[in-house]
């Protein structure tokens, strides 16, 4: 890390890397935050702008992959899951209770709105056997492995 990296605020433009001339403003802001706060837990930029983005965990064991997404206050009907060979997409809208609109708020931190998250998938997912379950505001996707994916192969080193 150079000393320049420690300086959080610089003139716009100097933040751009020479190899990525077209970067969105959002990415720039995110990078700026990340640099400033190090590895502190940070909300995605979308949330800082007041939009809802579900948090996602992706884990695996020998037999399957599991994707869990936090969608508090939603139900099955609000969520749509689609997939193709390479990725799975979770789409939905978190709606605000109508009865609460226009009332006196002391705190207002919960986020609403529509969202889309696309998660790239490994090659060995058995696309036909994917299961989705929704409980307690958490969506769980089980993606069995076909078992024919790229296996680890040890390469012998010759002297």
């Amino acid at each position, binding site marked *: 890390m150079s000393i320049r990296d420690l300086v959080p605020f610089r003139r716009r433009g100097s933040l751009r890397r020479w190899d990525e001339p077209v970067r969105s403003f959002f990415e720039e802001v995110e990078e700026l935050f990340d640099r400033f706060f190090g590895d502190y837990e940070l909300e995605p930029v979308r949330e800082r702008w007041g939009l809802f983005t579900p948090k996602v*965990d*992706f884990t695996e064991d020998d037999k399957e992959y599991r994707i869990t997404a936090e969608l508090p*206050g939603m139900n099955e009907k609000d969520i749509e899951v689609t997939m193709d060979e390479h990725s799975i997409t979770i789409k939905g809208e978190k709606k605000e209770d109508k009865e*609460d609109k226009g009332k006196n708020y002391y*705190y207002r931190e919960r986020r609403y709105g529509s969202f889309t998250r696309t998660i790239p998938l490994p090659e060995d997912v058995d696309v036909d056997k994917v299961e989705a379950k929704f409980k*307690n505001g*958490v969506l769980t996707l089980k993606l069995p492995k076909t078992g024919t994916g790229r296996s680890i192969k040890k390469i012998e080193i010759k002297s």
Partner: protein
Amino acid sequence: MATKELIKRTETSTERVQKKRKRIPHVDVIENQNEYILYADLPGVEEKGLDVTLEKEVLTIKGEAREEVPEGYTPRFTEFSPSIFERSFSVSDEIDRDKIKATIKNGVLKLVLPKAETAKVKKIEITQG
């Protein structure tokens, strides 16, 4: 962050909690004529894992998310992991403590805190003199 604080945090997290992360839930608090309503996003938490306490003037919400990831799973990437949500609020005497109601649905806690009779806005009728 100060190193001391970091060490303290690591120590407490290795006790019972193990891998569970502590998080501050997002809340909405609304006031209407007769009550305060608090909503807290607690994804993964059900009645069993939820603890709402009112001690003196501190209202504490604590929710433990059900184990989402069974043993033996390795993470590829994680943004939340199994979590413990905790947050405290100070509560005034204006609240009728005996009538607080808590419900949880789809990972959202709804707490209804009725105002005490004395705190309610009363309309005073004006009679012709």
